[in-house]
């Protein structure tokens, strides 16, 4: 494990080993301890550094990824920024496909990190970005698409990293809560924690999408990430944007932890499940910090849900 007192050779060595901090002021009862794993402290600011490094190194090891290839990924944010960082350090160019309605901070960050951008129709949401990326990859063989939704190196990063770190830090875990996107965090961390704590409840916090985000496509255009096995989730809870933002404010106000939107949702579910325990330990994985969301309207909105409904937030 990396020691903070020894200089690192590059940021590649500083991925993971994130802090775990207790949130005593958010626990609903004395017997229940609530912890937050601060993934925003990874080098590019999110949990996706783990996934990006894992996917790229797995592809290098298998021979699929060689110098001269060009990385391509559908992502409107954290995965793109993480891939841009790791790709830069390893010498690969990167193109990200992202919906037109991604937040400006994300677009600027991706450009600053050196990624090339291809925009997909906003009304097609995340599915549209996936579709466009798959078409590009098909057309141009120079592209290598790690595709976090179907890449086993994604959950493996959390099995070997996130989950192992939590298991080492705590003697007991009753509930694990993480945001549901690709399912990588929940699958990998959950599997590792079940080995140490067989009765752990693995709970997903899932965004309740606004109508404009869902669009009018048919159900046949739906998508379940291949790496996600819903049968391995014990709970799967919808969280509205308003609930996420309310929890975000409480987290910042009481504990001084500035989380991103999905972190708010995770804390919302963590506190809800903590209420159901008499005693125990709840671990919330906070995927990123709030900085990338500062330009969003919801901080001052009277109707948070309405102000957020046109964008996918995590």
């Amino acid at each position, binding site marked *: 494990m990396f020691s903070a007192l020894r200089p690192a050779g590059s940021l590649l060595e500083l991925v993971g080993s994130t802090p775990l901090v207790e949130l005593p002021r958010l626990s609903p009862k004395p017997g229940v301890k609530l912890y937050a794993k601060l993934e925003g402290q990874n080098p590019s600011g999110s949990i*996706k550094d783990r996934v990006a490094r894992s996917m790229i190194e797995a592809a290098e090891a298998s021979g699929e990824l060689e110098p001269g290839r060009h990385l391509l990924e*559908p*992502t*409107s*944010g*954290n*995965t793109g920024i993480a891939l841009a960082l790791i790709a830069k350090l390893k010498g690969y160019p990167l193109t990200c496909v*992202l*919906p037109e309605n*991604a937040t400006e901070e994300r677009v600027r960050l991706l450009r600053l990190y050196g990624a090339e951008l291809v925009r997909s129709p906003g009304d097609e*949401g*995340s*599915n549209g*970005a*996936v579709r466009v990326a798959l078409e590009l990859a098909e057309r141009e063989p120079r592209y290598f698409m790690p595709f*976090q*939704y179907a890449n086993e190196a994604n959950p493996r990063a959390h099995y070997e990293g996130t989950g192992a770190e939590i298991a080492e830090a705590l003697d007991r875990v009753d509930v694990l809560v993480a*945001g*549901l*996107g*690709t*399912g990588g965090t929940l699958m990998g961390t959950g599997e590792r924690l079940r080995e140490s704590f067989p009765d752990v409840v693995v709970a997903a916090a*899932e*965004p*309740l*999408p606004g*109508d404009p*985000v*869902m*669009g*009018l*496509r*048919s*159900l*046949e*255009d*739906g*998508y*379940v*990430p291949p790496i*996600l096995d*819903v*049968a391995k*989730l*014990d*709970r*799967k*809870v*919808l*969280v509205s944007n308003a609930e996420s933002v309310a929890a975000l404010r409480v987290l910042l106000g009481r504990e001084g932890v500035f989380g991103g*939107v*999905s972190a708010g949702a995770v804390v919302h579910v963590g506190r809800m499940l903590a209420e159901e325990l008499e005693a125990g330990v709840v671990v919330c994985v906070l995927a990123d910090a709030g900085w990338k969301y500062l330009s969003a309207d919801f901080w001052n909105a009277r109707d948070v849900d309405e102000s957020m409904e046109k964008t*996918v*937030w*995590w």
Partner: protein
Amino acid sequence: MTAVRIPPTLRNEVGGERQVEASGATVRELLDDLAERYPALGAQILTEGDLAQFVNVYLGGEDVRTLDGLDTEVAHGQTLILLPAMAGGCDV
């Protein structure tokens, strides 16, 4: 009666409504009731008597697939939410 929220994708199947009502003591009974009154909706959300792959059904805010599936019992005042399965989140 239980309130059922309909996503934009499925509103044509229920005459454009955002929310409809259904009766039943379990999720299966609610969905069967809906399918009987709105056959086009039933054809989309149920496949051979089971939930279609790309539809998610939530009762009281929780995915019924992690509860008791279609046998999940419905309590008074709970809302059923239907949603399309979408590529997750912002990380696309």
